[in-house]
């Protein structure tokens, strides 16, 4: 017990008396962690952008003007009951006409042509949002059921089909690329941290051999170095967390206008995932410092 306490005290003294080496090591650790976290953040933002894009995609089913409201309502209830459907919006014929006029306000020819027609040439519309973009092809089929097909004038999903496919493609690539980049940066981070510990211990190789000469056991020599590594890992985690928090606070408002006022997903990701991130990054750092300290000190423990 007394030996453990001495190792604990020695590790703390080592840390405070080797301030510059400690700060340099923490800085290198932080760079390694931040590079991984920046990529995680970019990944989270890209996922958010993909989600936002996907949420903008919908399918509009326009009914023929003569279609009764009962048929439209029936179709609406049918679609709402499907598990693939997130929501079904109802647009009356009058609302559809108003929206059409607004959309073509700058096009006098279209408006003149509309005036020549008697009454409202548009029917009611249903605006369908699927839970996932993969579900639209199924919904297209569902809408085309013989029960409703005779009443449908047009459906606009075809216009979005290319966009949806493109979004899905981008989303898939982003996830793959993001995962690969995070893995590569994590590996670089580990190598950088590995080297930082070795350098820090290399600078104290003379001290290690002296400790041995005056009768210190291997574990008594290694103990403070391993604990010092733990302190460095903990301090790095604290400083990195603060740095990431400040970056998010500074960056989030600037990103909102780029995403039509929607949040960038950065804060949501880091706030929601911090226990996992901290556990994985902290665990890796602590494990790494322990193993490398053990091995690196052993290299300088001579007979």
């Amino acid at each position: 017990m007394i030996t453990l306490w001495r190792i604990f005290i020695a590790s703390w003294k080592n840390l405070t008396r080797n301030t510059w080496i400690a700060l340099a090591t923490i800085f290198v650790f932080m760079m390694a962690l931040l590079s991984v976290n920046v990529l995680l953040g970019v990944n989270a933002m890209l996922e958010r952008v993909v989600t936002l894009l996907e949420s903008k995609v919908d399918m509009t089913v326009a009914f023929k003007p003569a279609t009764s409201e009962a048929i439209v309502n029936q179709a609406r209830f049918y679609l709402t009951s499907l598990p693939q459907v997130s929501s079904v919006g109802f647009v009356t014929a009058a609302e559809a006409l108003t929206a059409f006029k607004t959309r073509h306000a700058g096009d006098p020819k279209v408006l003149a042509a509309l005036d020549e027609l008697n009454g409202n040439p548009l029917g009611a519309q249903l605006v369908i949002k699927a839970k996932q973009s993969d579900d639209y092809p199924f919904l297209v089929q569902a809408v085309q059921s013989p029960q409703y097909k005779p009443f449908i004038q047009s459906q606009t999903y075809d216009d979005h089909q290319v966009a949806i496919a493109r979004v899905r493609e981008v989303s898939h690539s982003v996830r793959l690329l993001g995962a690969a980049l995070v893995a590569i940066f994590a590996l670089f981070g580990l190598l950088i941290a590995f080297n930082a510990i070795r350098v820090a211990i290399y600078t104290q190789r003379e001290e290690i051999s002296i400790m041995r000469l005056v009768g210190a056991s291997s574990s008594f020599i290694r103990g403070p170095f391993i604990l010092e590594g733990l302190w460095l890992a903990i301090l790095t985690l604290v400083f990195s967390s603060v740095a990431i928090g400040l970056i998010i606070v500074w960056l989030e408002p600037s990103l909102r206008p780029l995403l039509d006022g929607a949040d960038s997903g950065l804060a949501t990701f880091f706030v929601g995932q911090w226990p996992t991130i901290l556990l994985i990054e902290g665990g890796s750092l602590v494990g790494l410092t322990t193993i490398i300290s053990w091995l690196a000190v052993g290299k300088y423990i001579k007979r």
Partner: protein
Amino acid sequence: MIHLEHITKIYHPDSVALQDVSLKIEAGEFVSIVGQSGAGKTTLAKIMIAEEPPTHGRVLVGGWDITHIRSYEIPELRRQIGVIFQDYKLLQKKTVYENVTFALEVAGAPQKRIQEIVPQVLKIVGLEGKAHRFPRQLSGGEQQRVVIARSLVHRPKILLADEPTGNLDTMNTHDIMELLLKINHFGTTVILVTHNREVVNGLRRRVITLKDGKVLTDLAQGKYIL
């Protein structure tokens, strides 16, 4: 106390440091091991503290055969032999007090005992007022005193001093030798490895002279003859 039987140390086939060296050092003796550079003095000292294993031969320290000592047994041996080095080998990030304390801490000495012994030992070497200084804040002579204090806290039966005055001026050399004689007077076996002629001749104690890795002379009241 120390028994070396036919010790040979070969670093490389063309670099033989010691050749068939045999000698006995009794408890309470003050022995100087002298010789020119490359004679094998330091190798002999390293073999005595198990820093180097002999290539051939047998080493006994206090009846303990350390010829093939295991790595985990070495700390125990080092706690029984006080060692003084020419280049001091102090822990630069620790204060004088902590350097001396460290030698006791590694042996698991209780805090109370440390608090009793360390001030006493620092007083013996005349450093009681400089306990909280770092080695870089001390002169060479003072640093060597810290090393002596560190080697004394275990109350070792053997004190091995490898060129302890090599980096010191005449005044400090005299002080350190006085200290070593005082330590020997209280019963500790002192082995002095040196090539300082005046120091050896002034002692009038046993002198073992090494030349080319072999014992040239071993005289009870010897002089530096090379």
